[in-house]
């Protein structure tokens, strides 16, 4: 297949570029001695080659296909500084306890990527290569984004600190709820849920990912009624309140129109869905920055490619891309709720959202040190199947810079939505108070909640209603380097 092995040394250079097909590892895409530069982008792939394909060759092929290579030798390479532009696979390790899969470390020169463009970065790194026939499966596990590249992005439009300053809410998680039922409410009825939840004690309510502008509720109706509800709740409590108005639409023009209307009505926050695409997300982040708007991202669609360990893109990579792209909120898992989320892996996502420097931590699935160079912090959102009785676990696992969203756990309260909201807020404040006093909330949590419920009937009812609800299933996406603990208690 290759001509290089029989070539005389003096002819080596020419033969590298002789017409025909050559192993990727011999074209410069496998360089075991390569030391990644501080400015290189590094990608870690989980490579599962087809039977009989050598793992090094498969990994070199991934490097080739995600950078300069095509299936055959091209002489036009020689018109370029091709050594620089070739991605270099420099390390291939077997995946622990997973025969047939390999971790391939691949370094990319910074010049391969356009400044400030997730579209460009992802077109290279997860472009053609994921359909490459010699591979059974391929997963992008993690990326090291160098400071030099991080600095070409604006980062979150608002960030955790400024969001808290604007809302005047410090020292505790924010509380939210998604309006339910997701579909079918008229604008007028929808606003009722918003008003009750906000007046009862939540900071935010939220449109669901598929609430856009359907026949049962056009978007302008929803926005108008929701802002009536927000303002009325603000006056009733003396607190800043917000509702994530979903501006997701079929075209950018429609999204801008909806965003402008939300601004005109005085909303503090708008929301978009991940499915609108990286470029649309970056455009809306720029708009949010220009218009003092908090930008919430619902990760609709991500599980199609993040959940299975063998193939796709890890959510930790999506988290990194979204912090660069400039959203302010991202759904990042609850651990104890109804949606996928191993505790260690989820901690890794939360660190990537909130820390300025995230050190390598294989037990959390973090393969590289990741410097953020003062990029603003991204507020993680925990949503889906959580309730007040889990408050101690949620705060212990997720910390205080997080939005806890109790949708069913607010709206499904037996005494109504205000009571549900009040129960959540009392549980939250009691738990933060106790934590700050130095109490061991993880162990004393149920006791602390019980004590708080003595002065709050709605909390007592919430604890009774949901006391034993857990979603105790094994996670599919777990770290490779520790014993796996996935049970939620």
């Amino acid at each position, binding site marked *: 297949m290759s001509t290089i092995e029989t070539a005389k040394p003096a002819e080596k250079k020419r033969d590298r570029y002789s017409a025909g097909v050559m192993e990727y590892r011999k074209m410069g895409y496998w360089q075991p001695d390569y030391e990644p530069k501080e400015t290189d982008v590094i990608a870690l792939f989980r490579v599962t080659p087809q039977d009989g394909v050598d793992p090094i060759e498969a990994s070199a092929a991934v490097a080739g296909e995600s950078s300069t290579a095509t299936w055959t030798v091209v002489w036009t390479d020689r018109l370029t500084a091709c050594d620089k532009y070739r991605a270099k696979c420099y390390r291939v390790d077997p995946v622990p306890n997973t025969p047939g899969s390999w971790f391939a470390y691949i370094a990319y020169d910074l010049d391969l990527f356009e400044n400030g463009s997730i579209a460009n970065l992802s077109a290279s790194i997860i472009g053609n290569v994921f359909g490459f026939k010699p591979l059974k499966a391929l997963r992008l596990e993690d990326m090291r984004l160098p400071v030099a590249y991080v600095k070409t992005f604006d980062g979150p439009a608002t960030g955790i*600190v400024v969001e*808290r*300053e604007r809302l*005047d*809410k*410090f*020292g*505790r998680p924010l509380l939210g709820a998604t309006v339910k039922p997701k579909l079918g409410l008229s604008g007028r009825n929808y606003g009722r849920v918003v008003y009750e939840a906000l007046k009862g*004690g939540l900071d935010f309510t939220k449109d669901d990912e598929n609430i856009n502008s359907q026949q049962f509720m056009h978007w302008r109706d929803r926005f*108008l009624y929701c*802002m*009536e509800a927000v*303002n*009325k709740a*603000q*006056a*009733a*409590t*003396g*607190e*800043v309140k917000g509702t994530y108005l979903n501006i997701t639409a079929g075209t950018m023009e429609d999204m801008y129109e909806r965003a402008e209307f939300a601004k*005109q*009505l*005085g909303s503090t926050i708008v929301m978009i869905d991940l499915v609108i695409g990286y470029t649309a997300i970056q455009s809306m982040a720029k708009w949010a920055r220009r218009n003092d708007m908090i930008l919430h991202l619902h990760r609709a669609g991500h599980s199609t490619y993040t959940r299975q360990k063998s193939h796709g893109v890890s959510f930790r990579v999506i988290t990194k891309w979204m912090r660069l792209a400039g959203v302010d909120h991202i759904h990042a898992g609850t651990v104890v709720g109804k949606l996928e989320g191993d505790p260690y892996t989820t901690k890794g996502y939360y660190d990537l959202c909130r820390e*300025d420097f995230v050190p390598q931590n294989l037990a959390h699935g973090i393969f590289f040190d990741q410097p953020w160079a*003062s990029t603003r*912090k991204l507020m993680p959102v925990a949503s889906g199947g959580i309730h007040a009785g889990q408050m101690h676990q949620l705060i212990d696992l997720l910390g205080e810079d997080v939005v806890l969203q109790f949708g069913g756990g607010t709206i499904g309260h037996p005494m109504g939505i205000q009571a549900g909201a*009040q129960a959540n*807020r*009392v549980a939250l*404040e*009691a738990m*933060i*108070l106790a934590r*700050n*006093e*130095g109490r061991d909330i993880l162990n004393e949590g149920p006791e602390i909640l019980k004590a*708080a419920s003595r*002065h*709050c009937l709605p909390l007592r009812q919430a604890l009774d209603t949901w006391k034993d609800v857990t979603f105790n299933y094994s996670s599919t996406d777990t770290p490779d380097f520790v014993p796996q603990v996935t049970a939620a208690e």
Partner: protein
Amino acid sequence: MRITQGAFSFLPDLTDEQIAKQIQYCINNGWAVNIEFTDDPHPRNTYWELWGLPMFDVKDAAGVMFELNECRKAYAGRHYIRVSAFDATHTWESVRLSFIVNRPENEPGFALERQEVDGRNIRYTTRPYAANQPEGARY
């Protein structure tokens, strides 16, 4: 009504012992504790009056409690008083915790004024009833 700004407004009013524990938590984290007061509870009234400077060098909650009691002597009953803690750590450099420790005996709340404008748009104004009176004579 009861305005619910701050971290602990949904709990029964904190006792001095509870307040001191929160203050000590802040001090132990290296944050500077600050006492502020106002008689304008509008949710976007960011700048409450300072009771002295943030106590950067006070290492014991008792010192802050002394200042709080001095502030109470001057303003309790007619003003809101809050305790805030500032964290100077790089990439935070803002408030970490803020909670109300005193409130006026009677809280009349807010009027919501609506101005109907073009289309179905409404311009909203939240106005504290107390703000009808001049500062210092509101409660």
